[in-house]
């Protein structure tokens, strides 16, 4: 455990071991908050901060945590971070916090956060744990942003609320795809991303 390859810790969760597409964690929120880029970016940032800081704090506490109430202590740490993020969003990004509604609070139940604390932070020093948390949050955020990109441009013809598809397209008969706004299409998009990743990375394919 003493030799930690920092590059591996930082880069693996972004692509090769992406928590959403490889471990298939955090699906619920990635379907719910990817209708618009703005919401997806704020959500991604929130999750990065929460996973990073809770892994960091849990790693500092790792030698003092009584084993029997390990999960409860982790949950307390995670909820602390989530509520802090939620409160700050409510104060400084009110409209975004309204669109994200309950999903910020639900970061508590995002398996990525607890998963990384259990799997990494409890066995490693604080700094690698912080990096691991940040990288996993970023891996999740990346997928969120990619899905939101397609959903917003195909579903509303906008990006960050700005019109991208010109009016002349609509005049010529183009229509926004209403279906892509709904969660099932987000799941299909996610499936396509998993498909692309597995066709590049052959070792992920099950025999």
């Amino acid at each position, binding site marked *: 455990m003493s030799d930690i390859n920092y590059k591996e810790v930082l880069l693996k969760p972004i692509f090769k071991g992406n928590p959403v597409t490889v471990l298939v964690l955090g699906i619920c929120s990635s379907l719910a908050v990817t209708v618009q880029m703005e919401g997806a970016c704020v959500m991604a940032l929130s999750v990065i901060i929460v996973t990073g800081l809770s892994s960091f704090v849990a790693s500092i506490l790792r*030698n*003092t*945590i*009584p*084993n*029997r*109430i390990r999960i*409860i*202590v982790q949950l*307390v*740490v995670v*909820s*602390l971070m989530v*509520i*802090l993020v939620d*409160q*700050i969003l*409510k*104060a*400084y990004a*009110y409209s975004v916090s309204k669109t994200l*509604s*309950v999903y910020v609070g639900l970061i508590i139940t995002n398996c990525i956060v607890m998963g990384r604390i259990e799997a990494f932070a409890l066995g490693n020093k604080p700094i690698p744990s912080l990096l691991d948390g940040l990288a996993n949050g970023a891996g999740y955020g990346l997928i969120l942003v990619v899905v939101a990109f397609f959903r917003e441009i195909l579903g509303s013809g906008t990006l960050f609320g700005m019109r991208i598809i010109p009016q002349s397209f609509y005049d010529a008969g183009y229509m926004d795809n209403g279906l892509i706004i*709904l969660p099932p299409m987000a799941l299909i998009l996610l499936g396509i991303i998993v498909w692309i990743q597995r066709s590049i990375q052959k070792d992920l394919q099950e025999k």
Partner: protein
Amino acid sequence: MNTNGNTYTVIYSTILVVLVAAILAFVAMSLQGKQNENVKLETISKLLGAASQADESLTIEGDADVLALYAEKIEDAFYVNGLGEKVGQMNTGKENVKDIQVTTTSDLKKQNDIIKKIEDGQNDLASTLAMPVYVFNINGKDVTVIPCYGAGLWGPIWGYLAINADGKTIDGAVFDHKGETPGLGAKIADAPFCKEFHGKSFNMDGGEVFTVAKASAITEPEHSVDAISGATITSQALGKSINLWAKYYKPYLAGAAAAHQAEATAVSDSTMTCTPADSVKTTAPAEVKVNVEE
């Protein structure tokens, strides 16, 4: 040190929880002011949203300076009780936009609780109500905005109705909700549904003041709006809350309409050469972002 002993576990968890609670309490308290400010701003833009529907030419852009616009358009804001008497005054922010006072949803909830008690038979409480009334002047037209509040399917729903000077015709409506089902109950906040309220009116003669029901069950189309299909409970709850709140606003609205009527008659009798009211305030100042629709 034995980190698995009972004593250690109990002490550890106690310290941790107290510590976390202290941090959260501190953060919540220090951010409270800012958060309340946001809620107030949202309420103001909803009020303006309802009032502005009274005049087609006035639309509010998302990031417009709502405070300045509110201060410009508001004429009077005050509280009335269930008997139609004025019981308090709100600061309209004419001198300083920072002083604007509005009634946010948490205060509406308190009034709703009193209304429920009155409905349960405690009639003497009607005089203790303090329900907000906002009188706007939208391009020369007097528009009274009144709120409504009630329980939806998953959480509270509320809205603001812009009432014409006649005290019963609805000129505009804006609704919002805490967490109704997206695509179904959440549609009450969408513009197409709110548009349906335009031109409808309160039934001031007794019976149901206003209803939201499915098309086949509507008997008085001028006092009803078609419910959202698939969102029966939210629609019914909305109808119920409008009905209930309008019932207690009725004494005030009837009084205000009568006063307005008397005033209008007096004006038309005495000065036949008066200028049309809407030519007084037709142009908005340049610093306020107002869109004129084509």
